């Protein structure tokens, strides 16, 4: 059956759409594309341009070539700590928070009682706004008034937020706190749709719970893995609000996005310089994501690698599709 579809699709080729179809598609696909270009990509390119200039947002824009980048790498003390913290963030979310979210999802998927309660509780941190996250950090970690010192170290208080070697780990915990719930919900949704007969079949074959998970369940979660992977990278590289709420991202809590904010959004108005930091951040993000997507695409299971899309053009893919459907 499936093999008939691509041929039909191909045969109808260009006359597939009526004029009305073309109009609808043109307008409704054109609008988001236009918006994306006008609001996101256009300004991004403009920012790349601005990164080679010096501008205070008021006076004239002055071309300075690569000076901003030179200053950034050689004469801006917060830059390297910020880059390091962003990578640390990525490693922590990717290696700890994301797998932890997956673990919770797997446990909850086993049909435990009170599952909805657990889900809601674990998801709660995701909906919180900046102000309350900052307050909660103060509440728990404040050296003089916080709950943690009240419990652990009454006489010899630890400076959880002020010690630049320590505070980043506390903040990573807070970031993980928010990230875990997010990831858990995504995976939970994915797990709900794993065909239980697959698991049963594996169980009959004598596979243990762990084996079933790694050999059967995880591979079928591939589309979720892609989304979670992308989200983890985004969250790690765009991370901003928690440190900003805690101490405006200073004293050990530097992040690239905070440096961009300090220079562009705030009173400082070093727009060219801030844009240069943003461009660095952009290049790093794009590097990660494109590498990730390309790798995933090779497997042919991501939006980019879209099997339906290809099916119309590449008849050879029909075979694979057929196999998947039987599964």
């Amino acid at each position: 059956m499936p093999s008939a579809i691509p041929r039909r699709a191909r045969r109808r080729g260009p006359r597939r759409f009526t004029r009305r179809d073309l109009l609808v598609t043109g307008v409704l696909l054109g609008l988001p594309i236009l918006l994306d270009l006008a609001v996101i990509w256009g300004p991004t390119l403009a920012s790349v341009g601005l990164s080679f200039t010096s501008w205070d947002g008021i006076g004239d824009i002055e071309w300075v070539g690569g000076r901003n980048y030179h200053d950034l790498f050689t004469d801006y003390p917060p830059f390297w700590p910020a880059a390091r913290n962003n990578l640390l963030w990525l490693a922590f979310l990717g290696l700890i928070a994301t797998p932890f979210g997956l673990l919770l999802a797997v446990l909850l998927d086993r049909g435990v009682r009170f599952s909805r309660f657990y889900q809601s509780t674990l998801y709660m941190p995701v909906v919180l706004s900046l102000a309350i996250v900052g307050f909660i950090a103060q509440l728990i970690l404040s050296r003089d008034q916080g709950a943690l010192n009240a419990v652990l170290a009454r006489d010899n208080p630890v400076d959880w937020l002020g010690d630049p070697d320590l505070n980043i780990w506390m903040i990573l915990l807070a970031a993980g706190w928010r990230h875990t719930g997010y990831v858990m919900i995504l995976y939970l949704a994915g797990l709900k749709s794993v065909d239980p007969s697959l698991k049963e079949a594996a169980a009959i074959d004598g596979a243990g719970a762990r084996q079933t998970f790694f050999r059967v369940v995880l591979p079928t979660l591939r589309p979720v893995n892609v989304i979670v992977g992308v989200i983890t990278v985004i969250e790690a590289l765009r991370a901003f609000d928690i440190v900003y709420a805690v101490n405006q991202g200073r004293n050990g809590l530097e992040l690239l996005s905070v440096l961009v904010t300090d220079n562009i959004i705030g009173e400082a108005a070093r727009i060219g310089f801030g844009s240069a930091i943003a461009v660095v951040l952009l290049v790093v993000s794009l590097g990660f994501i494109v590498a990730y997507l390309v790798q995933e695409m090779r497997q042919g299971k991501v939006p980019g690698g879209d099997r339906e899309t290809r099916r119309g053009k590449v008849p050879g893919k029909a075979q694979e599709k057929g196999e998947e459907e039987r599964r």
Partner: protein
Amino acid sequence: MAQSSFSGSAGQYSGIGDAGHRMSRRTLLRATALGTGAVALPALLTACGSGPGGDSVTLGSNASDPVPKKAFADAFDAYEKTSKKKVKVNTVDHNSFQQNINRYLKGSPDDVFMWFAGYRMQFFAKKGLLTDISDLWPEFQGFSKALKDQSTGEDGKQYFVPYYYYPWAVFYRKSVFQQHGYEVPKTFDQYTALARRMRKDGLVPIAFGDKDGWPAMGTFDYLDMRANGYEFHLSLMRGKESWTDPRVKRVFDLWRGILPYHQQGANGRTWQEAAQSLARKQAGMTVLGLPHPGQQFTAADRADLDFFPFPEIDSRYGQEAVEAPVDGFLLAKKAKNKKGAKDLLKYLATPDAEERYLKSDPNNVAVNDRASTASYNALQKKAADLVSGARQISQFMDRDTRPDFAQTVMIPSIQRFINDPDDIDGLLKSIESQKKTLFAAE
């Protein structure tokens, strides 16, 4: 549970559930209708209200918390009553207002807006974002020369109407000083000796919190002005001196000398927590501004709060300079109703306008000599005396220098110094090279 919804959606997957289709389509239609309504709503809302321009004066305010907000409203009300004109206040919270100031002034600013005296005001004036109000100044009465200087741009014209200020000083509790028999120190040596004694008495000598980044600037400013004089300090702030200069190094050396008497872990402590330890008699003194520590005291304890001017380091400069940030009003270049705005500014420069404000917000001091001090509490009176006796008035580091330098260089640098006070040379070298980059643009 989730299971039921799952099978529900699975039913839909088969694509045959007709009822399901109709249901969801209806929901979607309803949602769309709602959406269209919601999209049109902002337009309708903005359409209410009067047309562009109009008779009233618009005023951009950064006083969003209840006490100052009400105090300003009282003052504007009084103006509206006597002049029969309208003041339309646009309030944005303090932090957002400050972060947005460039965009605000280039975009669509209000006629009159609140700002600070000093370098930042001069910067905006130089960039042509302000309207010169030199024509109003001859009529103003009761402003000292120091104030006029603070209101004057680099071109010699006035742009600013000062309103109130709040001096910085060393705060302490009278009862603690009495209990231990401490005396107010005049010189830096006495100050250090006092700190040493306080530690022996089991007190934290100097409460200190710099998590927010700005509070420690006050200590730096005073150390520099006392050790090197106001002129040098200002010139350092304007980027005209080198930060690797031995005079600057001396400031940090002095600071390092008393840093052990400061509360430990300052970078993780808010100034409120620092002031709190003063209120709880755990700490002996703290360097802050007039409006700060009082809010951490209970009403009953507030009378116990007192301050002394930052002690003398070099007898050539004594205690003549006072750090007293001045807040006031500016007239935007883009103002639509300049005539009305100037009329309002004239009123705001009067003693009456200041008295009305301070009645509701006793945390500041009026700038106008003629404003009545009858309603002042003891602390306010002392603050007024301190400022009127000052030879020079500095604003505060983040107002006396470029904001990019203060925000992106000095805050991290001072925090680094607090973490590691021993690497002064490395720190100053780093500040100097960043300073060169920033000030090169001027």
